[in-house]
């Protein structure tokens, strides 16, 4: 098997591994890491194609090689931005979960003025009613 074919196939497996990691790992940081594997795979595939284009005394086609350098730098910038977003999410909510039914989401809702007011209103009402009713907790819960 020639070098470009070998690394081209290696790139295909890298993309597959990265895709699996992005889908199955629940931690956003690990998803970013896996996404970088997909990126590496795409770059390596492009690099293998550049190597196949070796001509005119060059070891590879310099046009894809130049674009690869651009690509690697842009991929790094995107990773840095993704991590900054993740760290800000952690600062705001104390968690980095992406699940829909987690406390972090409820906490984030509290930051919405309208929803917070609504929730506060409901709580106040609950407190007022439970104070006005003489009885056990069981009776209080019957009202709702």
């Amino acid at each position, binding site marked *: *098997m020639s*070098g*470009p074919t*070998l*690394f*081209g*196939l*290696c790139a295909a*497996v*890298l*993309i*597959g*591994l990265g895709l*699996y*990691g992005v889908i*199955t*790992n*629940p*931690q956003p*940081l*690990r998803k*970013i890491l*896996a996404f*970088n594997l997909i990126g*590496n795979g795409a770059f*390596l*595939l492009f*690099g*293998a194609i550049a*190597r196949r*284009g070796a*001509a*005119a005394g*060059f070891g*590879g*086609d*310099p*046009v894809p*090689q*130049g*674009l*690869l*350098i*651009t690509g690697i*730098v*842009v991929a*790094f910038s*995107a*990773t*840095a*931005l993704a*991590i*900054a977003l993740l*760290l*800000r999410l*952690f600062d705001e909510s104390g*968690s*980095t*979960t992406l*699940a829909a039914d987690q406390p972090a989401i409820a906490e984030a809702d509290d930051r919405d003025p309208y929803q917070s007011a609504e929730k506060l209103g409901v709580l106040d009402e609950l407190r007022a009613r439970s104070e006005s009713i003489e009885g056990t907790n069981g009776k209080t819960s019957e009202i709702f």
Partner: protein
Amino acid sequence: MTVTSALAMVLALILLAIAAYTVAARRTFAAIEGFVAYGLLLSIAWVALSSIDVALTEAAIGSGLTGVLLIGAAARLRTTEAALSAERPGAPLRWLAAAASAAVAGGIAVAVLSLPDPAPTLAPAAAEHLASTGLGNPVTAVLIAYRALDTLLESIVVVFALIGVWSLTPDRTWGGRPGPEHAADPNGILAYLARLLPPIGITVGLYIFWVGADLPGGKFQGATILAAMWLLVMMAGLTDAPPISRTWLRILLVAGPLLFIAIGFAGALTAGAVLAYPEGYAKLLIKVIEAALMPTLTLTLALLVAGASERTAPP
């Protein structure tokens, strides 16, 4: 099978094994350590593909800077790890994901095996016009002459990414210094290395930048090494990142791309096309652009790692 192709086979297998480990590892730190080692091996794969310029970029940015970025984030998110592991999807979904990933990988593998032969190439065209740029390295010629538009847009994209990172600063710390304060033992190994390595690193970085015209290297690789040296000194607590509200910093961040744009549009008058260089002045202008991009790239790359502003602005 020759020795070289046997080595390439072994390299590809180790590469895939470590990549699988970074996906499967239980601890995030272990996964990132794997990723850094994998990045260095990937640089060797680039050498095997005769792309020395890309190998340098991969080692410096893909493995080095990305590794620092990921390790820093992992250290801060360590407390969330246990709770999130519980959200791991069940076996049916994992099998489905594995099947889908394998199908994608298989499709790409089929495409790799059916690539056209002989392969299309622009290498002869790149070689033919190399003399008119005054450069000896065809990859640099692609970056700064043939496909200068890509490089121009890229130098703007990096600055945009930094603006994006900075815009995630909470209101209370706006204008302050990026990242947490680093306090390392002044007599420790980190502070020692931060005093020992920068003179060597700066020399190597500038050399790689300078030889990029004729040999593998260039501004991106050189700027990354300079950025890494700055980050090392910052992490050892010997210096601090500048507050993001500083005017000199903001001017330096946009100066490189602005000069590139100015020379690019001047080409419309002097050479008949935007981003074209007048005959005889190509190499001079290319070196001016690269020299102007160096401080911008060094600052941007280092500050992208340093992150959003987290400490209140100094007076």
